[in-house]
């Protein structure tokens, strides 16, 4: 698991979730982890495209409307902007121009002032680089409905105070605005029309005791994820009768007894208590939540008593019990929850006997058994779970015999077999799984020979062969995968020959990890620069030098590059940074 393990760890520490859970929440985006930031951090375009494609699958290519062309023209000719031009444009079109400027990150303090008094209703500014207090001065009007300023870290209480002019706000997100204090949050008390509020990682929330929530009777969604200083105050949620989604994940100091305030929230469909210190007594307080569809108790100190209790949530479709130490015999009872679509039992120690009891879960689409005590003996279960789209068997004892039970899972899109005991002959069982998009074969016993079986899997977009014994000759097969966007090959067996003759021809690649291949030298770099879609490149432990690095200055889409332990000077790296406008993260 090598890198994928460390990646997972980084994602785990920084985002407060494991990679598996992250994927579940994002609706099945690849676990690329190339930019190890918080889970909402800027992701590679590959992830966004994946979502867009799955939404628009089968739709024809559409040309932009003339209106779009005109709006793009205005957004692109910012220098000619002045208030008089905007005066002639109706407000609904000004909103569209504003949206395009946001999308292109072209807004600055000077231009934002032009939009003051023009009834901007939606300002989705999360992650915009230069958002300052004066932006909110221009934008906060009575008409403002949606304001996303998560990760705008220069904002202070002064800017937030402008929200008192926007009492009609229905959506607000302030995640990771670290300069805001308890006093700044006072302004939230007046925002009684909010339907969605997100305050993730705002530590100052703890000091407010949540009193600002008391009058938000319209609230549907609330996230206090990672508000680690929150200990109490959930009584202020008791009146939020319309609340449907509540995220209290990683509120590590929240008292278990606080759960009693949630029992009246009958509309609640989604409840995340990941890594809270909620025990059995706390879970038992949740009895009134009859409409619950999605529950995460990952990492909570619960026992079999809670599992018995969870069985009462008859409508539950998604259950996450990752890291919960519940004896396997009790986990087996989950086989009665026939509505379940996704089940995460990673790191619970679930056994074959437990797995075999889950045969009733015919609706299951996602199952995570990472690091469970599963062997070939439990694998016959997969003849029953034929709707599975995503399956994680990483770090289990599953071998070639067991894998043969997967051959008929025609709906499978994501499969993780890293650190299992499978060998090349197991891949014979996978060769007809034409729907596979993500495949992780990071295990030492997979070699060049096995890869020949994968060439029929033409929907594969991500292939992880991190520790597999792949050499240059195996790349012949990989380059036949015409939709491959993410590839990891870190066995040490790849040389310049393989890069020049094979990898350089996989023009669809967006993310490429060639770390630990110490036989890759500067000779490879002109060929890598042909991969014009590349956004993430890892050449750690290769033999590239200053001279070689300049050869990739043509990779204009590059967002992240890792070149740890290479003989590189600071100057060469800085020079590259000036040549590549999108480059954000560089590891030397």
């Amino acid at each position, binding site marked *: 698991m090598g890198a994928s393990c460390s990646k997972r760890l980084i994602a785990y520490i920084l985002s407060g979730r494991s990679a598996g859970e992250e994927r579940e929440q994002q609706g099945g985006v690849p676990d690329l982890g190339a930019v190890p930031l918080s889970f909402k951090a800027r992701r590679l375009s590959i992830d966004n495209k994946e979502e867009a494609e799955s939404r628009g699958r089968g739709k*024809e*290519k559409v*040309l932009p409307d*003339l*209106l779009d*062309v*005109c709006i793009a023209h*205005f957004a692109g000719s910012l220098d000619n902007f002045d208030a008089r*031009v905007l005066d002639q*444009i109706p407000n609904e079109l000004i909103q569209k121009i504003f949206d395009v400027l946001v999308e292109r990150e072209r807004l600055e303090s000077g231009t934002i002032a032009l939009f003051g008094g023009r009834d901007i209703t939606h300002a989705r500014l999360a992650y915009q680089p230069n958002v300052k207090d004066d932006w909110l001065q221009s934008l906060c009007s009575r008409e403002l409905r949606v304001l996303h300023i998560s990760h705008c870290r220069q904002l202070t209480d002064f800017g937030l105070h402008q929200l008192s002019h926007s009492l009609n706000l229905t959506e607000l997100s302030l995640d990771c605005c670290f300069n805001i204090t308890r006093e700044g949050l006072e302004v939230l008390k007046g925002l009684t029309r909010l339907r969605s509020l997100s305050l993730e990682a705002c530590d100052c929330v703890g000091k407010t005791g949540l009193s600002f929530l008391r009058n938000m009777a319209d609230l549907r969604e609330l996230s206090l994820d990672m508000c680690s200083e929150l200990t109490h105050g959930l009584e202020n949620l008791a009146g939020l009768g319309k609340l449907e989604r509540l995220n209290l994940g990683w509120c590590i100091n929240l008292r278990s007894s606080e759960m009693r305030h949630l029992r009246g929230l009958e509309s609640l469909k989604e409840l995340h208590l990941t890594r809270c210190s909620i025990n059995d007594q706390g879970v038992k307080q949740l009895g009134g939540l009859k409409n619950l569809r999605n529950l995460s108790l990952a990492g909570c100190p619960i026992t079999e008593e809670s599992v018995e209790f969870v069985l009462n949530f008859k409508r539950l479709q998604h259950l996450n019990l990752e890291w919960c130490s519940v004896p396997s015999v009790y986990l087996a009872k989950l086989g009665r929850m026939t509505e379940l679509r996704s089940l995460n039992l990673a790191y619970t120690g679930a056994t074959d006997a437990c797995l075999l009891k889950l045969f009733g879960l015919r609706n299951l689409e996602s199952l995570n058994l990472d690091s469970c005590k599963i062997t070939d003996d439990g694998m016959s279960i997969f003849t029953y779970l034929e709707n599975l789209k995503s399956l994680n068997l990483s770090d289990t004892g599953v071998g070639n015999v067991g894998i043969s039970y997967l051959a008929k899972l025609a709906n499978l899109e994501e499969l993780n077999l890293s650190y299992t005991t499978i060998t090349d002959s197991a891949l014979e069982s996978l060769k007809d799984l034409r729907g596979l998009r993500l495949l992780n074969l990071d295990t030492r016993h997979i070699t060049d020979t096995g890869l020949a079986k994968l060439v029929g899997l033409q929907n594969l977009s991500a292939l992880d062969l991190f520790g597999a014994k792949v050499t240059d000759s195996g790349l012949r097969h990989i380059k036949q995968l015409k939709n491959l966007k993410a590839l990891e090959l870190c066995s040490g067996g790849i040389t310049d020959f393989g890069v020049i003759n094979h990898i350089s021809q996989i023009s669809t690649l967006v993310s490429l990890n060639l770390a630990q291949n110490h036989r890759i030298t500067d000779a490879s770099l002109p060929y890598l620069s042909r991969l014009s879609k590349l956004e993430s490149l890892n050449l750690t432990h290769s033999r590239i030098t200053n001279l070689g690095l300049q050869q990739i200055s043509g990779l204009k889409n590059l967002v992240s590059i890792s070149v740890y332990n290479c003989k590189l000077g600071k100057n060469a790296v800085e020079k590259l940074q000036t040549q590549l406008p999108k480059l954000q993260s560089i590891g030397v």
Partner: protein
Amino acid sequence: MSKENTVRLISAEGFEFVIDYEAACVSNTIKNMLSSQGSFTESELGEIKFPEISTPILEKVCQYFYYKLRYTNSTHDIPPFDIAPEYALELLMASNYLDT
């Protein structure tokens, strides 16, 4: 061009553009005007007056109609549809009105 399958679009200055019915229907507004829901004159005569749209703007709009027909579902590289800065504002208003 047979008369049945064409539409006359008349600019503010009275200049007439005779274009294919199919091209004109790229504009949702025109499409509605020409359908049975539109007024009698427009659907019967196949003639629409645009007193708010000047001749060069209407010409550019017609060019866009044909650009759209030509390149929708095209597998080739699609050239960008260029706009001269001096017309941008009027074209923005026109395209908004024409729902195009």
